[in-house]
Structures are given as structure tokens and as C-alpha cells.
């Protein structure tokens, strides 16, 4: 029998956790330095994760999934984040948690067979295309248009900061179908790589998340067949908002898990680094720093699990999810920063992983909705004005 550590999990989740953890340790961790250096990880990792069934934990069996278990998927997120490379975690995450859920939830049977089934197997890589150069926090300012022309949509515009954008086989693309209708004029199209008029720019160089590709996408009179419309026309904003809840939970779960990894690294260093005749972990200031780190991680974890459980039960979890995203990502930054500080001069050196944890963490309060946007959402819901 496997002990269940937290109220949210069943024994089967802990068994799954063990198997993902050993997979991550054996097949990802040994390559992290190399993939970080190269700025990419091999596409075979998607295939391997598909083969093991990890990409379909929250989808039904008819599409190759293993049951609609979001808690199991949360375990997958937590354990992937422990690989120690935010970029590898992000690349897999963009596929599994951003691109495939809208296809599953809103796609037609034919779309699911074409896109979801191979994505769950890891044979096709997906990306979600929302952000544009002038539409970041302000999603309703999207300027990429799709105009109906016979049996096609003609797409024009550009996207930026798209994780997996460079190598994705398909993009779940947010477009304006009714340009004057603000957020009520957004739709989703499934756009395949190689569609004429769709080109991919360079992978953008980032402060952290090095192995994940971050693409700039361009659409110039790109003809997309009408059957590639996802769900209903002009319902895109609603789809985005729905998907955001899971995306933000994933970010919060990953942040807590990665913060825990940074704490472990700091603990290891504090135990072995000797200054003034004793391990620095014996100094009160360092001990209290470590205690603070453990405490804020625990707090963030409990809040995140609470939000997750509401989400899993199908309740309105927007407030709690937004809170969890803020707390977990801020905690991740704070803990990674302290972990670096505890490492002293070595913390500033590239040969120690803690500097990467610190750089990788920094996207947390920006991506998937900034802390400021989260606060706007919470404010609107509590002030009710």
C-alpha cells in the first residue's frame, strides 16, 4: 500500500506519482543540462510520454486517454516540474494543458480524431496561439482576423510568445471573426503546420525556459478550411476563459513543485557549506530563511489544492484559481531568490542549477495572466462593481 500524503489524492494517484517520478529521474533529469545548453529538447519526449499514457490522463479512453481524472493530471504536472528545467516542463505543458483541452472540450468528433488522438499519443505537437504583439494582458485587443471566403477562413495577423509555436504540428489559434464585436468576436481555428500563408518566425531568446521554443507566428492570407473552426463562431473568448482556469492551475501546481525543488537544493547546500567553522545551515538567519521558504511553499500548496478541488468538482473556482496563481508564482520567485542567496557567490555561477531555477521562476508572475491581471479578476469578483 502506498501512503496518501494529501487529502486530495487517492492511492492510485500516489502509485502514478511514483511511476512518473522515476520516469522523470531516469529519462529527463540526466539530459537537462544538455537540453538547456542546446535550447531545445527532442520531440521524442512527446512520443515517449504519449506511449506511457501521461498525455491523456484527463481525457476519456475513446481518444486514447485514461479517464477524466484532473487530479491525476495534477500529479503529472507536479512531477514534471521536478525535472528542474522550466523549459522542458513548459513545452510539454503547452501541448498537454493549453493546446489539447479546447479540442477535447469544444471540438467535433472529426477534429478530435484528427488532432486530439495523435496529440495524446505524442505524435502531433500542439500549441495555443492567443497573445499578439499588441494584445497581451488585453486579450480583447486581438487583431488577427479571419474572414469567411466560401468554404474557407482567410487569416491575417501575427502571434507572439507562443510556446511550441516553432515546432507545433497544429495551432489552436484565436482569431477575430467579428472585428468590431470586441471580446464577443473571437473564434478558434485549428491551423496545421504547412498551411500556405502560415509561417513561423524565429524562436525568441528568453531569460529562462531555454529548452522550450517560443515562436512568433505570421498569417498572410492563410486559407483555413471552415471545418477547422473549433466549436462555435464568436465563442472564443468564453473558450479562452474556460481554458485559463486549468492553465492557471497548472502554472500554480508547477510553481509550488519547482519552489520545493529550489528549497531542496538550498537545504542540501546549507548542510554542506561550511563557513565560520560550521555548516551555514546552523546559523539562525539561514535556518529561519529555510523555515520561511518551507512555510510559504506549504501555504501556496494548500491554497492551490483547494482551488484544484473546486475546479475538479465543477464549481466556480475562478477566484480561488486566480489567488492560487498569484500566491504560488510569487512564492516560487521568492523561494528561488532566497535559494540563490543562500548559495552566495556560487549561486551566481552557471554551473550551479539554482541560477536556472531563479531565471525559470521569473516567468510565473507574467505568463498565463500577470499577477496584476489576476488581481483585477479577484477585485472584480469581490468588489462586484
Amino acid at each position, binding site marked *: 500500500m502506498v501512503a496518501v500524503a494529501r487529502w486530495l489524492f487517492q492511492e492510485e494517484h500516489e502509485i502514478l506519482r511514483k511511476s512518473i517520478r522515476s520516469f522523470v529521474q531516469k529519462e529527463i533529469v540526466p539530459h537537462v543540462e544538455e537540453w538547456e545548453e542546446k535550447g531545445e529538447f527532442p520531440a521524442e519526449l512527446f512520443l515517449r510520454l504519449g506511449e506511457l499514457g501521461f498525455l491523456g490522463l484527463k481525457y476519456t479512453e475513446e481518444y486514447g486517454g485514461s479517464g477524466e481524472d484532473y487530479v491525476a493530471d495534477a500529479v503529472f504536472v507536479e512531477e514534471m516540474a521536478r525535472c528542474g528545467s522550466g523549459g522542458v516542463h513548459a513545452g510539454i505543458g503547452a501541448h498537454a494543458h493549453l493546446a489539447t483541452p479546447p479540442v477535447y472540450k469544444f471540438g467535433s468528433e472529426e477534429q478530435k480524431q484528427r488532432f486530439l488522438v495523435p496529440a495524446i499519443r505524442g505524435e502531433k505537437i500542439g500549441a495555443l496561439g492567443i497573445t499578439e504583439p499588441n494584445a497581451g494582458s488585453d486579450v480583447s485587443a486581438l487583431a488577427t482576423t479571419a474572414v469567411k471566403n466560401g468554404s474557407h477562413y482567410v487569416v491575417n495577423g501575427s502571434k507572439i510568445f507562443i510556446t511550441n509555436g516553432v515546432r507545433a504540428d497544429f495551432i489552436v489559434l484565436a482569431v477575430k471573426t467579428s472585428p468590431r464585436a470586441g471580446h464577443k468576436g473571437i473564434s478558434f481555428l485549428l491551423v496545421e503546420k504547412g498551411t500556405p500563408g502560415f509561417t513561423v518566425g524565429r524562436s525568441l531568446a528568453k*531569460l529562462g525556459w531555454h529548452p522550450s521554443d517560443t515562436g512568433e507566428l505570421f498569417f498572410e492570407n492563410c486559407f483555413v478550411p471552415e471545418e477547422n473552426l473549433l466549436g462555435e463562431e464568436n465563442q472564443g473568448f468564453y473558450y479562452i476563459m474556460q481554458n485559463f482556469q486549468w492553465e492557471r492551475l497548472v502554472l500554480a501546481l508547477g510553481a509550488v513543485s519547482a519552489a520545493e525543488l529550489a528549497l531542496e537544493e538550498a537545504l542540501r547546500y546549507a548542510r554542506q557549506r561550511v563557513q565560520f567553522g560550521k555548516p551555514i545551515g546552523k546559523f539562525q538567519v539561514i535556518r529561519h530563511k529555510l523555515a520561511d521558504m518551507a512555510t510559504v511553499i506549504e501555504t501556496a500548496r494548500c491554497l492551490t489544492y483547494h482551488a484544484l478541488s473546486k475546479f475538479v468538482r465543477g464549481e466556480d473556482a475562478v477566484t480561488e484559481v486566480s489567488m492560487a496563481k498569484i500566491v504560488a508564482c510569487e512564492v516560487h520567485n521568492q523561494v528561488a531568490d532566497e535559494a540563490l542567496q543562500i548559495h*552566495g557567490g556560487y549561486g551566481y555561477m552557471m554551473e550551479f542549477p539554482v541560477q536556472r531555477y531563479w531565471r525559470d521562476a521569473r516567468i510565473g508572475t507574467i505568463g498565463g495572466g500577470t499577477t*496584476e491581471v489576476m488581481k483585477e479578476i479577484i477585485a472584480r469578483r469581490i468588489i462586484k462593481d
Partner: protein
Amino acid sequence: MAHYFFSEEHEAVRRTLRRFVEKELAPHAEEWEKAEYFPDWVFRRMGELGFLGLRYPEEYGGQGGDLFMSIVFFEELARSGIGGLPLAMLVQTEMVPPPILQFGTEEQKQKYLAPTLKGEKIACLGITEPNAGSDVASIQTRAVREGDRWIINGRKIFITNGVRADFILLVAKTEPSKGHQGFSLFFVDKRTPGFTVSRKLKKVGMACSDTAELLFEDCRVPAENLLGEENKGFYQIMWELQGERLFGAVGAVAGAQHAFERALAYARQRIQFGRPICEFQVIAHKLVDMATEIEAARQLIYATTWKVAQGEYPVKEISMCKLVAAQVSCRVADAALQIHGGYGYMMEYPVQRTWRDVRLNRIGGGTDEIMKEIIARSLGI
């Protein structure tokens, strides 16, 4: 006048420096960062223009100015946006020259101080060792007297300018049984047999300053390379650290100011929800917090510099300057990155570089925690 402490002379130097930084340094920022290096001519050129010796006596190639000239120097250098460059210049102007001027013989001043201030020789200071970081007293590098020479053995790490320096001012143990009273300082010239640069270290920020690991194996230096009195090295270093910390603090605040200006410019031109984001109250207040923290830290530094200029030795205030400036620089750079949103995470925007660069401020030259130890002691705790 910008401030009570600055005269027209300071402002004239500031204008010259600003033009120089804009014309000759800033255009190379991206190139040097990518190369993780800036060329040696920068030292020579700045020496030629008199910038490296602004506050030093004319007889050693200096300009005869006061301490506030050094403040002007570091405030203007930060405008290059290249954190590694002021760091290298901090070593060249405020870490190595003061102990030579204070403790050196006339011959040492001619041989090391004058060419350093003229940018003809690149200098570095060797204190930190793999097992002696915050705990300076646990330094293991040993110097043993043998006839008219000292034989040095040991390792140094995190030495700024160490890869290309023409000489190192080195701390070594001369009397192992005497604790704090058993250290001395030595000049070791590049190419002295037994002295090698074992590694160039890669850092998360300050990319274009070189950071070395140095190795001394039966390295023989002449007896006259001892700086000042034998066994006074620990006190000499503690004294040296005051200037390093004070002007390091100036650089930290100047770096914060640079990040603040970039964030302000971005917030003015970035439009979301139909208006520039600086018009949102949260962003406006964030910018206000940044400006306020910078101003407070700056005034603490100016007031402390005035005390130093009066001949005081205000260790407590200098440690406070270093602590506050380092923390403010990190908070401001972090807020500046946040204001840039997704663009802040992209390498093509310089704000991520400043964020990485300033992180060293809370570690180098004495960590935040060491500053607090010093301040606690000065409070009688």
C-alpha cells in the same frame, strides 16, 4: 545644481562622462554582452580621458577631485546598461588603488597605482577562496618567506578582472597561528611563474566582466611586493572593503535608476485596454515606489559619502548603504521587468539583463547577511 554636494565642476565631468558613455560604450552593449567580454581598450581609453583617477592625486596620474567625483563616475557608467563594465571599473578604481595609495611605498605607487589610474595596467583584487567567502578569516592561501622572496600557494575564486589583469593584489596567510593578525597583501604580476588563471567562470549576470579562478603553485614573488606592513592584511582589507561597498552601493542605485527609466519609458508607450499602461493606478504607484526607494537609498549614500569626506570611518552607515542599495536595485529591476510583461522575459529587451546583473549586488562585496552582521555589531549586539 543637482545637489548640495555637487559643484559646477562635478556637473561638467558628468556631462563629459555622459557623452562618452553614450558614444563610446552604450553602442557596444549587445555585442559585448554576447561576447561575454569587453575589450581592453576601454580601460586604456578611460584612463586616457582621466576617468579612472578622478579622485586621486595628480602626482599618480589622477585628477585631484573629491569622493563625489567617484559618485558621478559610477552614476554615469551605469547608463551604459552594461552591468559588468562598472563592476570591472569598481575593481580598477575603488578596490585596488586605495590600499596602494594608503599603504604602498613610493616605488609601488609608481609601479602599480599610476598605471592603473591611467588604464595602462588592469588590476584585480584576490580575497575570496572556494572555502572562504563570507568567512574571510578562513583564507588558506599561504605565503612563506624564503630569503628575499615569498613563496605563495593557494587558490582564489570569483576574482573580477582576474583573467586579464596585469597584476593581482593578493591576500595570503603569513602567520597561520595568529588568526586575524596573520594575513598580508602582495602584488603578484601576470606571468610570474607558478601563477595561472585556472578558469574563466560563467555567471548568470554581469556577463562581460571577467571572473576568474586563480591558482598559485610555488609562486615566487620578491620581498618588495609586500604591501604595507606584514601581518596587517586583514585590517587593510577591512579598510578597503568600506570604499568597495560605498561605491558598489552607488553603482547599485545607478543601475536601479537605469532600470526605472526604462520601465517608465515602456509604461508610457505600451498601450493595453486603450491607454498607456502608466495611466493605470497600479502601474503608476509601482513606478512611484521605485522612484521613492531609489531616492531614499541615494540620499543615504550621499550623506554617508559626506561623512567619509570629513575624515570619518562610518562602517555602520556604509554597511547600511550597501544593504539598502543592493536590495533596492533588485526590487526595482524586478518591478521594471514585471512592468514589461512578456517582453520583459525576452532577451532582446535589456531589462532582463539589468535584472540578472543587479542580483550580484546582494552577494558580492559582502552579502546582505554579512552587512546585517556588521550593523548588528555596531549596534552593540
